């Protein structure tokens, strides 16, 4: 091919320049995580806002030297101010809630900011000016390289030095490092943590805003910037080790270089590559390259605790009445009513399976869509390539999901806390990327069509009864597992893992089996979903599918058994009714999630139980 040294050098510099921006954004997130232990999705929003604000400022201040750089700086400061407000108004109220709730709350913020940005700046992409006097390129060994990219590499070096001096040569830095090490110790020494957290948040937000503003001469400012960057940045700080500055530097460089060279060597799997690296690093270094083991106190055990009781007598009567009512539903509602109810039942099964692994299972997964999507794709692939009948596909899909759970779960149960959440996330993204990019087999973005139910189940009433039977059985089975010795053992491991192990319980194996069980039912839900829509798309594997189920479980209540059921009914009804009349569906959804996390962390059913029913402690 005649690849010369100069070609490699330029490609190397290209990698470094994208690493520079990644580092700016990631270092802010990493600092924030270090002290607050919050993995902040809305960091992506701050990055996006930095870009949007600086675009608007440049329009007013002009693209001369002063106008351009002034706009960038002002935009970063504005972003820092927005970050500070978020911290004071919202995040302060959720420092005490379990980490996955925090993750969800910050995702809700991201949704809110998406709608706000859309309404302020409109749907069109915006393109800013080139940087004054950095708009050209210089020649390095005969190849042109943009001066602006060279400038970014230099700037990142300056920021690294600045952060180092700040962390190691100032009192504020000492306090910050102390807070990263041990928050309680610092509080005992009488340090006002509130303002320390706020100041760290402001600094992190400033860096995010700067990162976004610096993109102006490199890409157009768009509404998808937030999600695009945040997923990359999560990967960077997880590989580097959460809260470690030098880890973030190293990992940003690794990611930047892998991107630059990966495109040349494996152009087809660029999307998978990043998550693959993250998974490999986490398998060998469970806390990233430079991360430290977290106190097991903050691990997933906080997600849910306390006893789960079988339903009281009146509860069972109510359940029987509802089940009987659903049986007669086709007498009262039309086709759309049946379609909607079928969809709710499918989501309910998926939400219950997520609840099973997270609440009694005590495994804080963040990629449950993986099993839903595996079930859906197994159904589609078997139907398309092997022409199997519906009953066979309905049986095979949970098996496919179990296979996935056995493979991925083996790695996941060896990890803990936020790393576990990120590992499950990485696996789900990997499978999503395969479905998205391997279009010869999966149809890629165009999905797989013509996945309709068998003749006997093809009318809406028949399909409704089939869904009713399968989802009902699935939900009852999952529920009954909780009260088997296996279920008690899972909860023992969750609540007191050391004691449970001393009693001879194999924690890892139990959780591994738990993931298989939850995966199987998620797979069944995915298969039914495929038949109900007649088609399968990569969206069934993406983060929104995971989040939908998550929100359903949260609305109902984490530590209740009926919560996911109530949650899925409410969520789907809200989504179908509100999105029909409102153009701010994401803003509303985000606000609802935030309200639940802040005011009802126990969920609606949890709040009901607390108010009206004495739960045995």
């Amino acid at each position: 091919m005649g690849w010369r040294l100069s070609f490699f050098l330029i490609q190397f510099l290209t990698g470094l320049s994208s690493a520079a921006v990644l580092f700016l954004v990631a270092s802010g997130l990493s600092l924030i995580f270090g002290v607050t232990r919050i993995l902040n999705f809305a960091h992506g929003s701050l990055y996006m806002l930095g870009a949007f604000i600086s675009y608007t400022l440049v329009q007013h201040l002009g693209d001369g030297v002063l106008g351009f750089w002034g706009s960038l700086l002002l935009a970063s400061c504005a972003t820092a101010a927005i970050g500070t407000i978020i911290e004071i108004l919202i995040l302060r109220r959720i420092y005490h809630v379990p980490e996955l709730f925090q993750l969800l709350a910050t995702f809700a913020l991201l949704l809110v900011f998406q709608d706000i940005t859309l309404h302020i700046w409109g749907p069109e992409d915006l393109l800013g000016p080139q940087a004054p006097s950095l708009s050209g390129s210089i020649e390095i060994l005969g190849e042109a390289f943009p001066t602006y990219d060279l400038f970014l590499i230099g700037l990142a070096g300056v920021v690294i030095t600045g952060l180092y001096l700040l962390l190691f040569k100032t009192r504020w830095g000492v306090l910050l490092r102390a807070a990263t090490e041990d928050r309680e110790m610092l509080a005992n020494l009488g340090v006002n943590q509130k303002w320390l957290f706020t100041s760290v948040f402001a600094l992190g937000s400033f860096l995010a805003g700067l990162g976004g503003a610096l993109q102006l001469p490199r890409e157009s400012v768009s509404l998808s910037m937030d999600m695009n960057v945040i997923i990359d940045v999560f990967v960077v700080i997880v590989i580097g080790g959460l809260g470690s500055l030098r880890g973030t530097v190293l990992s940003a460089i690794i990611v930047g270089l892998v991107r630059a060279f990966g495109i040349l060597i494996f152009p087809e799997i660029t999307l998978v590559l990043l998550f693959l690296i993250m998974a490999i690093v986490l398998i060998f270094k469970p806390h990233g390259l430079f991360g430290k083991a977290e106190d097991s106190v903050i691990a997933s055990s906080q997600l849910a605790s306390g006893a789960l009781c079988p339903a009281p007598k009146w509860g069972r009567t109510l359940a029987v009445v509802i089940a009987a009512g659903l049986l007669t539903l086709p007498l009262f509602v039309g086709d759309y009513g049946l379609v909607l109810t079928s969809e709710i039942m499918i989501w309910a099964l998926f939400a219950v399976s997520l609840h099973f692994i997270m609440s009694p299972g005590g495994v804080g997964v963040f990629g449950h869509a993986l099993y839903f999507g595996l079930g859906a794709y197994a159904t589609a692939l078997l139907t398309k390539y092997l022409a199997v009948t519906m009953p066979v596909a309905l049986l095979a899909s949970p098996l496919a999901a179990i296979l996935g759970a056995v493979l991925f779960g083996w790695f996941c149960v060896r990890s803990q806390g936020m790393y576990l959440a990120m590992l499950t996330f990485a696996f789900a993204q990997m499978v999503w990327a395969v479905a998205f990019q391997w279009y010869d087999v999966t149809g890629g973005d165009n999905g797989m069509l013509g996945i309709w139910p068998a003749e006997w189940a093809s009318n809406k009433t028949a399909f409704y009864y089939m869904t009713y039977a399968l989802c009902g059985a699935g939900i009852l089975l999952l529920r009954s597992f909780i009260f088997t010795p296996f279920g008690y053992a899972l909860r023992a491991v969750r609540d007191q893992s050391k004691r449970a192990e001393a009693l001879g319980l194999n924690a890892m194996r139990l959780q591994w089996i738990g993931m298989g069980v939850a995966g199987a039912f998620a797979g069944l839900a995915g298969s039914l979903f495929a038949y109900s829509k007649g088609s399968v798309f990569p969206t069934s594997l993406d983060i929104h599918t995971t989040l939908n189920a998550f929100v359903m479980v949260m609305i109902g209540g984490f530590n209740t058994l009926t919560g996911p059921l109530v949650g899925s009914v409410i969520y789907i009804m809200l989504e179908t009714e509100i999105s029909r009349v409102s153009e701010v569906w994401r803003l509303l959804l985000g606000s609802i999630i935030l309200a639940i996390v802040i005011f009802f962390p126990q969920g609606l059913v949890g709040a009901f139980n607390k108010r009206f029913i004495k739960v045995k402690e």
Partner: protein
Amino acid sequence: MKTLSALVLGFVLMASPALAAPATGEPIKIGEMMPYTNGPSFAVPFREGWQIALEQINKEGGVHGRPVEIVSRDDQADPAVAVRIAEELVSREKVVMLIGAGFDNVGLAVGNYVNRYHVPLLKQWAGSCGPIEDPQNTYWFNTTPCYGPYARIFAREAAKLPYKKWAMIGPNYEFGHAMNESFKAELQRLRPDVVFVSERYPAVSKINAAAEIRAIDRTKPDAIFSTIFSGDLASYLLHAQKVGFLQDKYCISGTNIGSKTSIKELGTAYPAGWLTEGVPQDTNGLPVDPFVKLYESKYEQRPDLMAIYGYQILLVAVDSLRKAKSLNGEDIRNALENAKIDGPFGPVQMKNKQLYPGFWLGHTDNQNGKGSMVNLKWHSPEDLFPEAFQTTIAQ
């Protein structure tokens, strides 16, 4: 009272045969969906377009005297949501047909649904040719040709040029591969001396512009066929600007970058000298002119291509409703097979479930950071899509 007004109405009708009465009675419902809240810039112009057509149609008496009502929904750019919305529109709102479905994947999911439940679907632009040309497809129609014939238009233009070394870049999903491969096959058929030296497919909205440009530049092409769009295209152009990559290369954009929205979105980085599709500034005397005037008076700006498509789609829908024997799915479908309108692109007729309007092709220009389209030339459908018109004659 009723008789009186009917009498008056009848009198007015007789007195002014040129003016039809406004439609009255039970409306005929058409379902529409687009990703309204996900922020693509084409959804709102599309709605503005059909809203103008709707007012006009109802003023002219609707369909057999009944007004037309459009039930509009947000499909959230999610195929699964779109299928649920289709169910809701059909069984709860009782719409007689569906229009819209913006993104390709949403269109495919809804197309798959309508073929099973026998509801006609009109989509504003086509995706890949496979699904629409599939003999199993009976209810899904497009108001623009699918990627294959569309890409061949550009190949024919490319064949007239002296360039022999071509490169291609497109988004790594079905659309990009389908467009680029059709272009390549047609160009190689017309010009066996042409070679394709580089074919790049960066991940959608994840382009590494610097690396892609370097990979193409190493192969020293004379010309480039490109189908990347929006954010990816912007990053590509910004980097190309810095390193002077495009200065000596002729480019064709298979994705339409001549629209008002693209010119605005690509701003100062708007390329000069690229062949692409556009709408002329001066529409006087053209079939599209009445619509442009209506649009300008209502929205105080010039319409984008997508608004014209939105206008055209409703004309086609209503034409088929008027001609259909009844309002059941099969009859509307049969009428759609032969839909024929004198619309914004002149007279057009449905052929093999697709409409082949003509296009304006021209070159992009950038004067001091302001983009525009120059030398736009109208190409009639018969010139652009000879194969579509020949097959009809052969049949």
